[in-house]
């Protein structure tokens, strides 16, 4: 019995929270990527750098920052807590950790695909009377959608692999916040190697499929 109930639970939980986190960051990531690719504004480079930070910072450091922000001693955490929203050590913490860690990948990928859309097309659409919103949804997005989907897939894969930030913000609580990566760590720690290998197989397969799809889309996007 390789696929135990526990294995299923962990896999479904990871996929569900990973998907939710990707969907949450998608609109913000697309909007921000557009602002980076198409507009000049003050402090743009600073904001770009901050957004990219989680990509290079130790995930544990990012997790610590998040813990400080969402902990109850911080005004933000306190404010949320007063409204019945607790983030630390539950699935919302997992979601936030995943979102923050995968956001830079999404933004970078989408930004590139926006830059590859010929701005002349947007300009001509404007002379034809199309509003900024119509240009964005009828010209820019359809021409960049492959890059956007590829970016979302990449972000999703990154979310599934999240470990460092998650363990700090959400802990490693079996049945509550335990994702694939956290569970592998746990199994290895407690000497349950066979269980760890099953999860290992699942993560490798998922990662392979997502990265392969993402690359395929990006290549297809270049050809079009």
């Amino acid at each position, binding site marked *: 019995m390789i696929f135990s109930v526990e294995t299923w639970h962990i896999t479904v939980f990871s996929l569900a929270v990973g998907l939710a986190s990707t969907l949450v960051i998608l609109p913000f990531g697309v909007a921000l990527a557009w602002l980076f690719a198409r507009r000049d504004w003050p402090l743009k480079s600073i904001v770009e750098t901050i957004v990219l930070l989680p990509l290079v910072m130790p995930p544990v450091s990012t997790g610590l920052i998040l813990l400080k922000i969402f902990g109850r001693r911080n005004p933000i955490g306190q404010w949320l807590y007063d409204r019945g929203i607790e983030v630390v050590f539950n699935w919302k913490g997992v979601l936030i950790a995943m979102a923050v860690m995968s956001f830079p990948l999404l933004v970078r990928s989408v930004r590139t695909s926006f830059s590859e859309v010929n701005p002349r*097309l947007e*300009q001509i659409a*404007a*002379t034809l009377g199309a509003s900024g919103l119509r240009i964005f949804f009828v010209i820019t997005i*359809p*021409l960049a959608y492959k890059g956007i989907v590829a970016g979302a897939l990449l972000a999703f894969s990154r979310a599934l692999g999240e470990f460092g930030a998650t363990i700090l913000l959400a802990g490693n609580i079996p049945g509550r916040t335990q994702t694939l990566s956290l569970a592998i760590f746990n199994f290895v720690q407690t000497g349950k190697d066979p269980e760890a290998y099953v999860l290992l197989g699942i993560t490798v397969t998922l990662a392979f499929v997502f990265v392969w799809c993402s690359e395929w889309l990006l290549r297809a996007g270049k050809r079009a």
Partner: protein
Amino acid sequence: MLLRCRIPLANFELDIDVSFDARVTSIFGPSGAGKTTLLDAIAGLRPIADGEIEINGRTLYSSARGLNLSPQQRGLGYVPQEGALFPHLSVRKNILFGAERHRDIGNAEGISIDHVLEVLEIGKLLDRPVTELSGGEAQRVALARAILSRPQLLLLDEPLAALDIALKERILPYLGRVRDEFGIPMIYVTHNLTEVLTLADWVLMIQQGRLVTQGIPQEALRSAHTIMQIPDEQFENVFTATFIESDAKAGRTRVRLRSGTELFIPYLPQPANRSLQIRISADDILIGTRRPEGISAGNVIAGTVHGIELVDGQALVPVFAGEEFFVRLTSGAVTRLELKEGTPVFLIIKTRSFRVL
């Protein structure tokens, strides 16, 4: 139309101050003169340092009044050099993209989709993806898209530049038809003299961001200063002619110019449209001071020299023979024939030297 603008560019400053009122105004000049920049500025796609743009009595931009209409509000139709069709949309969706533009900005009614499709002959292309169009088809679709947005003014940026010569000659008549059928004023950017002479009734010649000269094309482009900037192969006479008859055996077609002068041109089957445009290079016309006899050339036309421009050993001799013909000679030939203003001469033109657009 009033056009006054100053735009700093990398190597020079575009500084134009003109006002004109014509059906087709050509902006003529060498590559890199700032022509596209000027169109972009009129369309509102590029910031202007200061100036004023007014079209049909409507101010689109005025630095003094702090007015700067967005490209959407300007109500202009822009056909860029590369066509810029939306690659993910069908031909139909492309040409209808701007068709919903608000009526009070656009150029009222009177332009129907069917009419545009018919004039540009693109009805058959409607359901094709634009990625499968040929260069000439793509240009016509881009033109249709701009016209159907019912603009107050059409801005055409070298619409023929990307096409090869054969295709150019096929597309040029479409532009003439657009001019005649839809009554939308045009600004036509080009570096090709034939296109100016064929389409425009006013020309602004710009170079290095400055206006060099302006006026009616035939006259404005005559000045010596101008001649030297026009590439040799482009120095041509362009006439509108009416088809009279064709003789396949003799290999020639007889046409009449507006002035009544009749000419023989190479054989062509009776055209559907009896009005054609013919052209002849200024280097392919001979001048004789006596009527020649026993020659092969099919056209000998009597005329009078009026005005001679001498530049660097070359002479541009306009000869009035019902129409104005430009002939380019060496200055030596002018001296030898003792040509001067008022000299009666004969123009000798081979039938086969004429080209039909």
